[in-house]
């Protein structure tokens, strides 16, 4: 094990001599924590709207005003007929058409009810669904206001007041940022080890190492430890960025976050090294690693919630180490979960770590 020290010195020297790598260790977390949460948001704003007002009454004008005053909608056009509005929708200029029927005001006063038609462009399902929800809310609110003003007995029996736990503002950022940190780690400490051993194979330097008495455990450890330290630096750096830029701080314990990440970085850097050991050249390693990263990210619950996946897919995601770390990171950040509560995420991660670590050492062949 004496040689490990010298191997490590060599690895660190090479890592920091490669001017691009240290640059990425800083820039990538910055981009992931600062920029991505702003653009990868699931909040829908600025929906474009066309209104066909067939009534031209005071009440219809008030409805129009109310809708366009909402922060979610932009009133794009007021049309005279449906065909004109439909053209706009087909061109993609507007996402919604509201049709206020003829005699809207009269019907409302006379019968106590009137109809508003909402046409939704559902090409983007999420946009359509959420927008429809917002729009219905606004119209219902308006109906409520009207009945209150007139003292009429329009039914207004129950009002639902939702309270969102753990993330009262349903702010997207505290939800995404912890998960994005884990994704940054896959990109850096998963990908880079995958290119490392195979890089030595390509440059031929492994030949010279192989005829030395350096053991394979030492060799693999010398490849892993640098990424461990870099990974933990990235976690710390990302947490500081999240706090300074977005004011997102973990509700739970910071040492717990590091405990999880220590195991997690071990898992993914071992996977990366295993891929590297089996690859003959950098291209192979990169494409295999890319495959894993894409699959891991898409099935990790980062974007689509695990609970909405089909059962077989949910079972399959148990093989995804990213799933456990993302769940744990979100629980620690939002709910302030403690270690006993997260044991069901911790144990699979540890098992994964043991398997991947042993595999990385065993698959490294000093001779063939």
């Amino acid at each position: 094990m004496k040689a490990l020290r010298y191997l490590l010195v060599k690895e660190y020297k090479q890592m920091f001599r490669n001017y691009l790598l240290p640059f990425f260790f800083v820039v990538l977390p910055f981009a992931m924590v600062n920029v991505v949460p702003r653009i990868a948001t699931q909040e829908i704003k600025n929906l474009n709207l066309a209104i066909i007002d067939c009534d031209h009454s005071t009440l219809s004008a008030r409805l129009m005003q109310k809708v366009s005053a909402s922060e979610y909608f932009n009133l794009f056009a007021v049309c005279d007929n449906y065909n004109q509005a439909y053209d706009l929708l087909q061109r993609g200029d507007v996402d919604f058409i509201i049709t206020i029927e003829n005699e809207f005001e009269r019907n409302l006063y006379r019968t106590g009810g009137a109809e508003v038609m909402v046409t939704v462009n559902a090409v983007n399902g999420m946009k359509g669904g959420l927008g429809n929800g917002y729009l219905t809310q606004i119209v219902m609110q308006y109906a409520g206001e009207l009945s209150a003003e007139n003292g009429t007995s329009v039914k207004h029996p129950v009002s639902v007041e939702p309270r969102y736990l753990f993330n009262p503002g349903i702010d997207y950022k505290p939800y995404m940022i912890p998960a994005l940190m884990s994704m940054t780690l896959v990109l850096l400490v998963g990908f880079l080890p995958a290119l490392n051993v195979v890089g030595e194979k390509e440059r031929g330097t492994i030949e010279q190492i192989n005829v030395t008495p350096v053991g394979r455990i030492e060799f693999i450890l010398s490849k892993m430890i640098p990424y461990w330290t870099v990974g933990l630096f990235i976690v710390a750096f990302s947490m500081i960025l999240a706090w300074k830029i977005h004011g997102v701080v973990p509700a739970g314990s910071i040492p717990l976050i590091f405990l999880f990440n220590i195991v997690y970085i071990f898992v993914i850097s071992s996977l990366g090294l295993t891929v590297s050991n089996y690859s003959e050249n950098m291209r192979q390693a990169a494409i295999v690693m890319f495959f894993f990263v894409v699959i891991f990210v898409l099935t990790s619950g980062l974007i689509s919630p695990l609970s909405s996946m089909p059962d077989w897919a949910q079972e399959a995601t148990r093989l995804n180490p990213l799933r456990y770390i993302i769940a744990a990171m979100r629980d620690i950040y939002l709910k302030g979960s403690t270690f006993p509560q997260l044991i069901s995420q911790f144990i699979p991660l540890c098992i994964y770590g043991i398997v991947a670590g042993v595999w990385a050492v065993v698959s490294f062949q000093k001779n063939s």
Partner: protein
Amino acid sequence: MSIISVRNISKAYNKGKTVALQDVSFNVEPGEIFGIIGPDGSGKTSLFRILTTLILADSGSAVVDGYDVVKDYKCIRQHIGYMPGRFSLYQDMTVEENLSFFATVFNTSIEENYHLIEDIYRQIEPFKKRKAGKLSGGMKQKLALSCALIHAPHVLFLDEPTTGVDPVSRKEFWEMLQKLKRNFHLSIVVSTPYMDEATQCDCIALIQNGRFLTIDSPQGIIDDYTETLWAVRSDRMHKLLTDLRDIKGIKSAFAFGEEHHVTVDASVITMEALTQVLQEEGHQDIHVEKVKPSIEDCFMNLQKG
């Protein structure tokens, strides 16, 4: 006792389709420079990789420095120095860093074995802060040799150390090897595609298509040469070669520098007769003389048979 003893080594790749080595056996004595000489693709590197414990032979056995290459590969790695054909030091580390890295992984230090590399390393010491990747070819090679020597190995394996090196550096390199042999009684196994380097070795093996054609001292190989060898020149060298091959009594003809070397059946054709035949073919300035065989002539001759 021999420092390397190889018995019936065979190795094939692609599930037996590409044969690299067939039934190779030889011994290397301590303090000897043993040259393995043969063209590209003849199996030289495969043999080196088996002896340096990087690959396993399909059959046969080999003992290096008293250790079996399969069972005791860990011990062998302590006591051999290997310089692969391709420059394989860390190009992003400096000369000094490479040297001290390889010293430390062998659990020694530059100072401890400096006497071994002194002559060689002194020449690159002025550039010790330079990255290995930025060195010239000759300097890279000196650094690689220093790194292979820094742990005081008992046997040095050099795979085509002079390939791609200019003639002056090649000569220098061989002088370094001779010095190592003389001063430290080091055993050296070296491969090369250059026949003219053969005379630098104490013992050479000519290898082709994975087989050893012969193993002997360079003089021994030349002494074994029984053919009559002539050097032929004329004003039209290219035509001369094809013409020579058609003449009765000429067993083989091949280009050799500025001349063509031909082996002849002296009972069928004489020098005068050959000159006359060539004149009839339209050659002028014909020059035929008897020459002493070189290693290359021996190789060409052995290769036919």
